[in-house]
């Protein structure tokens, strides 16, 4: 029988993984920082190796080069050992940019491989490695304009999550 505490730990880690995606898609730097411990390390291969929170600063600026992007995480496997944990999450990231007349979509199928610790009751990342399995770029044809998605606090998700309708 699994204890409620372990279920809660798993959910806390899963929610942090989702908050990471939310932060880099909405360009919410403080939210992204809350996913990493202060002394954490992020290894994104050739694009970035350095402090975990520094990655958030870097990627939120880098994302401004794109029109929009969506990071979707599935298959999350978590192994918990007391106040420490490891996880693997599959991520599919799609990013769009305009290059002249062309609309280009970059796609990454990758895995976030994370080491976690719980400090003062707060689960956060000690180390993240991003392993890219494959990637591609394609020309895409949009279906229509999407007016409601925003990359700031005016995105409608902020009020919905606060419980405002």
């Amino acid at each position, binding site marked *: 029988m699994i204890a*409620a*505490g372990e*279920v*809660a730990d798993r*959910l806390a880690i899963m*929610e942090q*993984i*989702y*908050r990471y*995606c*939310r932060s880099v*898609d909405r360009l919410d730097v403080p939210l992204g920082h809350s996913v990493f411990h202060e002394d954490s390390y992020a290894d994104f291969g050739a694009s970035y190796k350095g402090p975990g929170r520094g990655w958030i600063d870097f990627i939120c600026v880098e994302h401004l080069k794109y*029109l*929009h*992007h*969506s*990071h*979707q*995480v*599935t298959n999350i496997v978590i192994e918990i050992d007391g106040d420490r944990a490891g996880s693997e999450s599959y991520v*599919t990231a*799609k990013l*769009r940019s305009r290059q002249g007349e062309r609309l280009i*979509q970059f796609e990454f199928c990758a895995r976030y491989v994370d080491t976690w610790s719980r400090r003062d009751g707060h689960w956060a990342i000690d180390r993240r490695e991003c392993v890219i399995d494959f990637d591609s770029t394609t020309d*895409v*044809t*949009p*279906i*229509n304009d*999407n007016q*409601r*998605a925003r990359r700031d606090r005016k*995105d*409608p*998700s902020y009020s*919905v*999550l*606060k*419980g*405002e*309708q």
Partner: protein
Amino acid sequence: MPDLLTELADKQAIRDLIYTYCRAVDRIDVPLGHSIWHDDGYADYGADYYQGPGKGVIDTICAHHHHLLSHSHQVANILIELHSDSAGSESYVHGTMRMKRDGKLMHLGVWGRYLDSWEKRDGRWGLVRRSVVFDHQEIREVTTMPGHGLAAARDVSDPSYAVLRGEP
């Protein structure tokens, strides 16, 4: 402050309803889709698609899906904030749809987020408002691969119904 087990159970109940929505519109199961909504729920899928009663959006989508060859709505990242008997959630969704157009097989891809407001009434969580935000979409021609696995159906003959009932 609710106890930990109640909080976990509430979040799981909401997650199950989000998955149930996808299942309902993909299997074209209108009663299942209605079951996730409270009677006075409101759906805002944008002025160009649907704004109106929550249960009505299920009717509209299921009617539209009959004109498509196949479709799959996959929800990833689900973040839920509980506020005792109400909750807000954001769910990333990747929907793909196939249709024939001018003799070509076209593939529509939609990346969006379901922004949901929930209420627990008489012990039952239900949707009171959904806004759908689209991040990006595409349409392209595709080539099919030889099929494998069981054939999918968009009615109760789909093999998932028996499996979920616990029938081997």
